């Protein structure tokens, strides 16, 4: 029952004084995570019957958007858009400069008329005679001054003569003294900035929805470029969203921009009051009757508030900056009910006043920046009763001021919402002074729009929407109680979608269209309203709320919120240690979802589109085709988790539906069309090109040249007439030679190599990293083993002879390696620290190939019998690569194993072991007791190394020691 007053309220202190500093110690931390108070409930008879309720309850109703973007309702019309970023008043110098440059005549008009005849700006000397003698020739200045329009380097384009003129004339040539102009500009910019950051004129908002029945209603909103046309659109809330009726809206042209629209409906009849700066008008209509204007009144001072009575149709409150509140009985005129010359509780230096009706038809709320009073209209002289004031009772912060007060008649007949820049308060007029509820709304910009979300039938929970102007925020707050139970807030504030964030979710736009759209979408908000209804339209339809937002460009955007009752989501940590099963279940489901997340994400919109709209089936099919895509998505662990998360949290779908996309596409197209493709800025700096491209003098050229030119011209002409291509035959030879192919091998440092690799795509790049970090040692080893096995089998198949030579080779190579190690530590370290990566192994290999193909030379060079290329060598060039990668650091790959009959496998494994473990490698080195090989062997190395002189030095310095060595191995076979 509405008349009940809660039997017990949450305890709180009552400090009747100005806001104290001590309260705000951590006030900027926001309002999260607090309970604020607890109240015992329950029967005292049973020992365990006690339960508590808190002033702030952890969870409220879950509302989620059906689409990830706000959707435009009306097609875009022409609009004036102001600047979006608040100007910095200290930029006044720049503005002054612009003024002097662009409006030179206004800035220097008088003096230039006087001085003009003493200066002569034209080029040449002849005409000069006509002028008075003694005039100064300024033609060199002309070009200079021309360039002043552009932002060029002032040092480079300086002119010393001009500098002297400046010092001579700078204090006389200006029409307006710069000091004066500067201070005026500064003042103006400050004001503009303030207006952009916070403009109190639009308090209340100029958007109203008048419900008729079953989701139908009438939307009153301003239109036209100056927002000076009042439109009444018939709208209907349907499953898909808000539908505009095809009928033309009723519209009324007003004389001033609409600042606020207030409405109230009573038993099928509705009254709408509209406030512009100095005029207020009232319209009346119903579902069957067209809107008709009843009366217009004008106020002497700017009107700040208009408010329609919810009790008696045709009563309107009007407040103006004169400090007076008037009761306007439509048809009779204004009657002053309260006048206040000063602010109510302290001097806030503000003329802003606000009025609202209360639960009693003859008691009104009179508010200014300092507080709210309840005033009885019948007793004019009587002082008001304080309902709310900025004080420490409400735990206000210093500097806090009231921005708006709103009668929440839809939610509770005795409740009022008071919004400040920090908090929102629910006041009960039966118990003035003490706020029943306080939220920290945590909005960036001050909330000056407010709307109560009507209660659903049978539910106690009501919502409050707060909207800010410059940042377009909408915040949904929920609360309950005020009848049997005391008021308590539900859940943390929820931010709704903003139009300016829409473009992120839409297909990418061409840059200049993007700019148009961004500017249009970031226009400040100008109003807020909501429609409550059933999404399905029928009685069993899902509860939904449609939130509409008006921007100053005259666009209306809406978003549909559906109530999401997720039972698993509602689980609260009731016990100190939840049972193991419960946890298990939770983790199970979450992991499940993580796995199938992406697939679901693709499947869900598909079904939606199909059953919601058959005409959009094409879009649905397109989605079906896309379903295999997520398989790739799964490769990326990051993408998989985020996707799964979105599903798990039961949030809005990640991508807008096809219908929304279509709406947006049409809207953006219309917007581009309406705004017109802006011509490219014609004021660009143009460079002189007149004398840049000239044919050298004819004398220098020979007759042959001329002839060729002639023929070329002829050919060109012929080609043009026949529309064919001109192919240069003879002259083509003289074309500049193609620059030499870039050889990436020449840069062997890590960065260059990485960059080179990255040209081959992400795979290669990633592989390089893996190699470099030594992440794929395992797999490489495996691959190598396989290859070796295959090799061995092939060899076995080929016959004894080969095997023999193979074993021989391996032994020899071992020796050379050992030699390399023991004799030259530098070499070994250089090689082991990653000499050749996979990337340029091609290059290296080809060199090696060449190198190896001259075995005789090597043989003569040293005693090492270099194996001749085996018969198979050509057919498995691959083999070489493998062995190349196998060659690795010459650090004495365990000598004993080298000598065994199975060189490949064990050899490799030990190789990797040793490389992974430097200590082990060292021990291997120690254990090897080989004779110092002859010097000639080293020469082989030297010659080899010298073939890549660049590679050596940086290798020594670079790379982590554990970097995988698999790719860096030179073919051992060759030695």
């Amino acid at each position, binding site marked *: 029952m509405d008349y009940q*007053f809660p039997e017990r309220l949450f305890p709180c202190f009552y400090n009747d004084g100005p806001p104290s500093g001590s309260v705000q110690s951590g006030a900027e931390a926001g309002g999260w995570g607090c309970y604020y108070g*607890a109240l015992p409930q329950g029967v005292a008879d049973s020992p365990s019957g006690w339960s508590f309720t808190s002033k702030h309850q952890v969870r409220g109703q879950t509302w989620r958007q059906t689409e990830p973007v706000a959707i435009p309702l009306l097609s875009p019309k022409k609009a004036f858009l102001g600047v979006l970023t608040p100007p910095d008043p200290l930029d006044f110098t720049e503005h002054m400069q612009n003024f002097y440059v662009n409006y030179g005549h206004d800035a220097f008009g008088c003096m230039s008329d006087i001085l003009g005849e003493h200066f002569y700006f034209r080029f040449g000397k002849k005409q000069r005679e006509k002028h008075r003698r003694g005039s100064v020739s300024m033609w060199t200045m002309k070009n200079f001054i021309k360039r002043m329009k552009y932002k060029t380097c002032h040092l480079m384009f300086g002119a010393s003569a001009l500098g002297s003129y400046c010092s001579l004339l700078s204090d006389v040539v200006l029409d307006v003294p710069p000091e004066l102009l500067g201070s005026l500009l500064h003042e103006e910019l400050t004001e503009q900035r303030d207006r952009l950051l916070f403009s109190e004129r639009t308090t209340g908002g100029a958007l109203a929805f008048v419900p008729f029945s079953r989701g139908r209603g009438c939307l009153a909103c301003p239109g036209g470029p100056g927002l000076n046309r009042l439109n009444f659109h018939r709208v209907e809330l349907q499953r898909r969203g808000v539908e505009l009726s095809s009928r033309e809206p009723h519209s009324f042209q007003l004389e001033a921009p609409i600042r606020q629209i207030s409405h109230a409906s009573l038993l099928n009849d509705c009254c709408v009051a509209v406030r512009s700066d100095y005029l207020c008008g009232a319209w009346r209509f119903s579902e069957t009757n067209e809107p008709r204007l009843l009366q217009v009144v004008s106020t002497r001072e700017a009107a700040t508030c208009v408010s329609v009575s919810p009790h008696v149709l045709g009563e309107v409150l009007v407040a103006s900056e004169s400090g007076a509140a008037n009761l306007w009985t439509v048809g009779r005129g204004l009657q002053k009910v309260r006048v206040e010359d000063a602010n109510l509780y302290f001097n806030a230096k503000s003329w802003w006043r606000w009025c609202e009706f209360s639960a009693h038809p003859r008691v009104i709320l009179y508010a200014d920046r300092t507080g709210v009073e309840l005033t009885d209209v019948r007793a004019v002289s009587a002082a008001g009763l304080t309902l709310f004031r900025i004080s420490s009772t409400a735990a206000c912060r210093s500097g806090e001021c009231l921005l708006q007060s709103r009668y929440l008649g839809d939610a509770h007949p005795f409740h009022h919402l008071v919004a400040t820049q920090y908090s929102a308060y629910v006041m009960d007029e039966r*118990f003035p002074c003490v706020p029943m509820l306080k939220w920290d709304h945590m909005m960036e910009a001050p909330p000056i729009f407010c709307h109560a979300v009507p209660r659903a039938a049978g539910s106690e929970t009501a919502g409050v929407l707060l909207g800010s102007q410059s940042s377009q925020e909408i915040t949904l707050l929920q609360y309950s109680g005020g009848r049997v139970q005391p008021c308590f807030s539900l859940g943390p504030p929820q931010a709704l979608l903003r139009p300016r964030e829409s473009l992120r979710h839409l297909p990418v736009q061409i840059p200049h269209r993007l700019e148009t759209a961004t500017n249009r979408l970031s226009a400040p908000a100008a109003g807020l309203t909501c429609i409550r209804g059933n999404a399905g339209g029928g009685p069993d339809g899902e509860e939904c709320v449609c939130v509409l937002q008006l921007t100053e460009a005259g666009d209306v955007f809406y978003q549909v919120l559906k109530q999401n009752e997720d039972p698993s989501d509602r689980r609260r940590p009731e016990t100190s240690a939840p049972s193991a099963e419960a946890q298990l279940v939770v983790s199970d489901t979450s992991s499940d979802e993580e796995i199938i997340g992406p697939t679901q994400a693709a499947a869900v919109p598909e079904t939606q589109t199909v059953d919601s709209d058959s005409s959009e089936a094409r879009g649905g099919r397109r989605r079906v085709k896309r379903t295999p895509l997520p398989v790739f998505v799964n490769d990326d662990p990051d993408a998989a988790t985020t996707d799964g998360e979105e599903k798990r949290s039961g949030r809005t779908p990640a991508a807008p539906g096809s219908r929304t996309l279509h709406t947006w596409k049409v809207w953006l197209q219309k917007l581009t069309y309406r705004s017109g493709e802006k011509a490219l800025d014609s004021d660009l700096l143009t460079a002189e090109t007149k004398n840049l491209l000239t044919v050298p003098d004819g004398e220098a050229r020979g007759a042959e040249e001329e002839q060729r030119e002639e023929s070329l011209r002829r050919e060109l002409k012929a080609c043009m007439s026949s529309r064919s291509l001109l192919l240069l035959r003879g002259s083509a030879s003289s074309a500049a030679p193609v620059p030499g192919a870039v050889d990436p091998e020449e840069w062997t440092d890590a960065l260059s190599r990485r960059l080179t690799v990255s040209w081959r795509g992400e795979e290669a790049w990633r592989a390089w990293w893996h190699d470099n970090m030594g992440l794929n040692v395992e797999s490489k080893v495996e691959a190598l083993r396989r290859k070796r096995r295959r090799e061995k089998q092939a060899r076995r198949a080929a016959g004894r002879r080969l095997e023999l030579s193979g074993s021989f080779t391996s032994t020899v190579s071992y020796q050379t390696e050992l030699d390399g190690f023991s004799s030259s530590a530098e070499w070994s370290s250089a090689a082991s620290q990653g000499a050749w990566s996979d990337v340029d192994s091609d290059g290296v290999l080809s060199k090696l190939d060449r190198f190896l193909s001259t075995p005789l030379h090597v043989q003569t060079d040293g005693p090492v019998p270099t194996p001749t290329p085996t018969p198979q060598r050509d057919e498995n060039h691959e083999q070489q690569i493998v062995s190349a990668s196998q060659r690795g650091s010459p650090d004495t790959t365990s000598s004993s194993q080298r000598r065994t009959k199975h060189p490949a496998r064990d050899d490799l494994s030990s190789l990797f072991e040793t490389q992974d473990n430097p200590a082990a490698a060292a021990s291997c080195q120690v254990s090897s007791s080989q004779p110092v090989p002859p010097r000639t062997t080293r020469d082989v190395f030297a010659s080899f190394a010298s073939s890549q002189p660049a590679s050596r030095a940086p290798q020594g310095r670079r790379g982590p020691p554990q970097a995988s060595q698999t790719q860096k191995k030179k073919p051992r076979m060759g030695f």
Partner: protein
Amino acid sequence: MPEGILHPDNRTEMLNVGNLDKDLESHGDPDNDSDSSDNSSKKRRKSKLPLVKHLYVESRNETGFLGSCRMCLEQIREAMLHHRWQEAAEYMACYPQILEHQKNTTAQRELVWRISTEILHHLPNSTMDDYNIIYERMKHSGVKLYLMISLEHSFHLMLHGHIEDAKQQLCVAESWRYGKETTSQLQRTKLIQAYRSLLDYIIWCDKKANLSKNHSFDSDNQSVHNYFRQASVNLQEILKNPGVWDPFILSYVEMLEFYGDHEEALKVLTDYAYDNSFPPNPNAHFYMYRYLKRHDAPEKRLMKALKNLHVLVPSHELMLEYSSLLLQSDKRSDTQKALGVLLEMLDFGCWRSNLDVWRCLQAVVRELQSEDGWEGVVCERMETRKYWWPALHFTSFHAAKDSEENPKLLEVKASLAKILCPDRRLRYAAEQS
């Protein structure tokens, strides 16, 4: 042309030099005139607009670490405002690093605590242990936060049914002392004591119920009495401070009544209702009335209590009782008062279609009609209402609605319409006839 315009660079250079000079000066003399005027102008501008500066907004002179912390906070905030708790939790895993920063402020510590608890509220697998860890850790992160977090911790325990633990927490917080006490700290201490006493009362209730069931010994009785004594000290203390103490006063009065201290109970209730330093709490008068009624106080006192309530809340549901009390009394003026009370109730939207009030009004009017000059009395009461009551109650729309929803109401209203608004032709009545 002035040089400054042609060469803005030069000008800025000059300005810079000027700044440098000023800087040098201000270094030497911190109370420089130009400096202070600068500050005051900044302040003035700041106070003029109701804008908020948030913690997540970029500040000057922030280092890389603070910058990344701020960005992280921004992400957390964004995620939390859009109720993406999982995402917020992931970011939150990093944010507490700010606590290691030397210059972290109380606000930042409080923020860490607030955000973590809020995220825990919404994560599906948060346990009580998680909460305890957060509360305990952050409690000790700063002296300014200790009392607040202790109180919130006990609330959390209470809400989850751990009354003993909650009491333990409150006891610990009660004995906590630190430095000089600010007003808010003092009040918080008192609140902690009062909540502790409330829990004492709850235990007292439970013990008492057990006692009455088991008929046990004196020692038990003594322990129950101990709880009463513990509770009463603090409750008495907090009731001296202006504020809303509904649950505390109810429990205190209940205990006092149990031990038969009616004088004290009445005194406490009277203070609560009639002390001017207290906010005008309708419940204070309601409790008073209920107490008086429970103890069979004379009608005069009841009516006095209700009269006070009527001044505060003319729409209170007890006004029906008040009007019937007024009607029962013999005085003629009381009947007129009853008429006033009922008419005022009907001003409010919530009573407009309530049959009982209209019936009551009918009875009062009948009572009045038995005397002379009743029309004058009604006229007087209706004087201020005659312009808007017809629109409020007696339009054809109301008639249609009433006949549809409550025909009896229609009957009562129709009979009263002519009496209340005799000189106006009402559609409500016309349609009826």
